[in-house]
């Protein structure tokens, strides 16, 4: 079966999450990814629960990539890297501002050897400019972007997302950049430099709030899951957890009262309009919760959905991962290492009619493919080629 990128070879010099997530998306679309690691390995090999020097974090962002070890700082290894680039289509790097040029493996260096190379550079804040030397860790980007200042309980402390949002979104934007580059190259036979800064990505993840500030000067503040402007629109407490229940409009609120056996509440003077339900939320919630607490999350969700009230349980990860939904969509894929150790990770959310996404893949040990890849690019099989790389 043909996949869109199965004629594309990517050399991945990135570590951590954003770059590896980018090339993993491209791998899911069929690309061959050669992951160049330093002798100490990608830092994520040491992150999370370990199994034979492979951290779970590494497995979840590096499935299907061929690991080779090169020290690009060394001239002889740099030459091997450039040879590899000649036989590849895409380079993805996240070495830091100006670093790849210093090492002689920048865009211009590669272009001399491979005139139609696509070169994606991921930094925190661009190669030049105001913040260029700041730390590009996900939490710092979440802070600087203003994202934290619009996230949190109403009136409460500014909160960071409990997941590496800036890294993950940057990974997807990186994939978008490379895919656009592949189309560009098919049309023009030209090279392309693609520049992606993680802080810019995080700003773009708040398009409406930033536009509101730009055009009115009004800054968005945290408002939790409740909505200050629309009626009953928040988490309802159930027996075993909470359920998002968006019964904002009149007919939805009326339906809610019927589900809960609270008919007539919509006529109560305190609650008979969206505005009043907002103002009197502190009185309304206990009345509603006294009934919702008698139901499980699942019961309550089903009843709300049956009456067309947007609703969903606030799941913990284990709840959603064990759900029928995840099973139905085959969202969990198996990844095997060469010792037949099997891991389970989350697969791609994208679905295409014309080709299937991979249902299983491999994860490589540090340097597992060094010998094979170097033999290919140097045109020899002699075992010595692996030695060259040490």
């Amino acid at each position, binding site marked *: 079966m043909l996949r*869109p990128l199965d004629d594309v070879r990517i050399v991945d010099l990135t570590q951590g*999450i954003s770059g590896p997530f980018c090339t993993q998306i491209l791998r899911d679309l069929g690309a061959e990814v050669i992951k160049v690691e330093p002798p100490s390995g990608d830092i994520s090999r040491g*992150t999370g629960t370990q199994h034979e020097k492979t951290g*779970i*974090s590494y497995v*979840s962002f590096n499935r299907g990539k061929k690991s080779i070890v090169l020290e690009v700082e060394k001239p002889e290894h740099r030459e091997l890297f450039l040879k590899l680039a000649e036989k590849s289509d895409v380079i993805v790097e996240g070495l830091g501002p100006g670093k790849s040029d210093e090492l002689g493996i920048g865009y211009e260096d590669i272009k001399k050897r491979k005139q139609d190379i696509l070169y994606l550079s991921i930094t925190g804040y*661009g190669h030049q400019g*105001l913040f260029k030397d*700041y730390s590009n860790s996900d*939490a710092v980007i979440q*802070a600087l972007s*203003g994202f*934290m*200042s619009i*996230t949190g*309980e109403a009136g409460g*402390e500014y*909160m960071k997302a*409990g*997941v590496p*949002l800036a890294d*993950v*979104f940057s990974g*997807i*934007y990186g*994939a*978008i950049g490379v895919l*656009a580059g592949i*189309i*560009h190259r*098919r*049309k023009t036979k030209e*090279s*392309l*430099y693609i*520049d992606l800064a993680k802080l*810019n990505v995080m*700003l*773009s993840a708040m*398009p*409406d709030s*930033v*536009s509101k500030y*730009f*055009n009115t000067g009004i800054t968005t503040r945290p408002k939790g*899951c409740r909505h200050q402007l629309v009626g009953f629109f928040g988490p309802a407490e159930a027996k075993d957890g909470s359920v*998002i229940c968006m019964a904002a409009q009149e007919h939805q609120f009326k339906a809610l009262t019927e589900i809960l056996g609270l008919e007539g509440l919509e006529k109560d003077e305190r609650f008979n309009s969206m505005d009043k339900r907002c103002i009197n939320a502190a009185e309304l919630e206990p009345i509603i919760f006294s009934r919702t607490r008698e139901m499980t999350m699942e019961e309550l969700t089903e009843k709300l*959905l049956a009456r067309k009230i947007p609703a*969903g349980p606030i*799941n*913990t*990860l*284990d709840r959603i991962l064990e759900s029928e*939904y995840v099973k139905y*969509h085959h969202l969990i894929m198996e990844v095997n290492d060469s010792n037949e150790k099997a891991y389970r990770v989350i697969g791609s*959310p*994208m*679905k295409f*009619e*014309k080709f299937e996404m991979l249902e299983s893949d491999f994860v490589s040990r540090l340097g597992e493919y060094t010998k094979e890849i170097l033999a290919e690019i140097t045109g020899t099989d002699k075992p010595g080629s692996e030695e060259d790389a040490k």
Partner: protein
Amino acid sequence: MTERPLSGIRILDLTRFMAGPLGIQILENLGAEIIKIERSGQLAEFSRSTEPTFGTTSAYFMAINSGKKDISLDLNKEEHREIFLKLAEKCDIVADNFRPGVTEKLHIAYEDVKARNPNIIYSTVSGFGYEGPYRSQGCVDTVAQAMSGFMSLTGREDGEPVRGGSSIADVCASLYEAAAILAAVIYRDRTGEGGFVDIPMLSSMLSVSEEMAAEYLNCGTEFKRCGNRDRQKALFQTYPALDGSVMIDASEEKYFAAFVRLLNIPELLEDERYGTAEKRLLHAEELEKILSAVTRTMTMTELADACRAAGIPAGEVNTLERISRSGYIEDQKMICRVHDAKEGNFKVLGLPLKFDQFEIPNEKFVPQPGEHTAEVLKDILGMSEEEIQKFF
């Protein structure tokens, strides 16, 4: 400079709100011609009336709909539906974000379009996918954030689950939408075949907790909220300042040492209890108190600058106002000026990707509802003024 990669690609865009329009906006930035379909008058897209509004546009709408030609069609009317299908014949891509089932009822579904344009790429963003559990349920951003587990991981340890302050499930699905359409374009270039592309919001949002999901699936680890602390590294967290707070990574040996020196409490380095990262993890709470007592006396800028000067990863917890005033956004040329024919000029964010061979425009229009109806029908379908008048 050459043409943008998607120049020559035409997209018929039925998407509304954010999970859809944002992805199509990315493709517009990359050079595609977008024909956005709305109902006319009061029934135009709801996000035009999301506060703050300016005439028929809003801060929300203009941020994700610039440069899109806008036509008014009522797809409940058979003659308008026929116009839709004729337009689809002249397009490369159709994009929608209706609940599964809606386009079938309107006879504008993938099968209907394919009958007229066999190589069409038809992309749909929905809450739960085109098949499977919950398929026919509507979904909004908050529900996808909640069901994906994201909210259970965000917020104070002893607080309630917190929603990401922007519509991140909409954003996430839109990014995958753009990536998937690009992949489908490449596939079509190679094989001549278009096809159906299905992006469920809930699946998209699961990928933001990829790493933790893998920990659960392989080791059974369950995760709690951890507020503004790192999940693994002690003292990588926010610290209070006079006028706000600062995110600082004082976890590693060298960072911790530099941090206590700059706070002028070097005696902590002599203290046995804090001698290694593991020990500091055990005593994180008391250490945090000691460190915070000093950081609290500095302004955000003083504290963050001092950390950065000492090589410690740090960043101010900015408001949108603070980051906007920093000069960074202009410096990065991230601002796009947009023009509404009636309301004048506004500013929104541009694409966070930059390229050396082509430029992404930083001046565009924001369409009025139906602003391009006549133009599009004339230019693309070759309809005469009279014919157009007959339909509208």
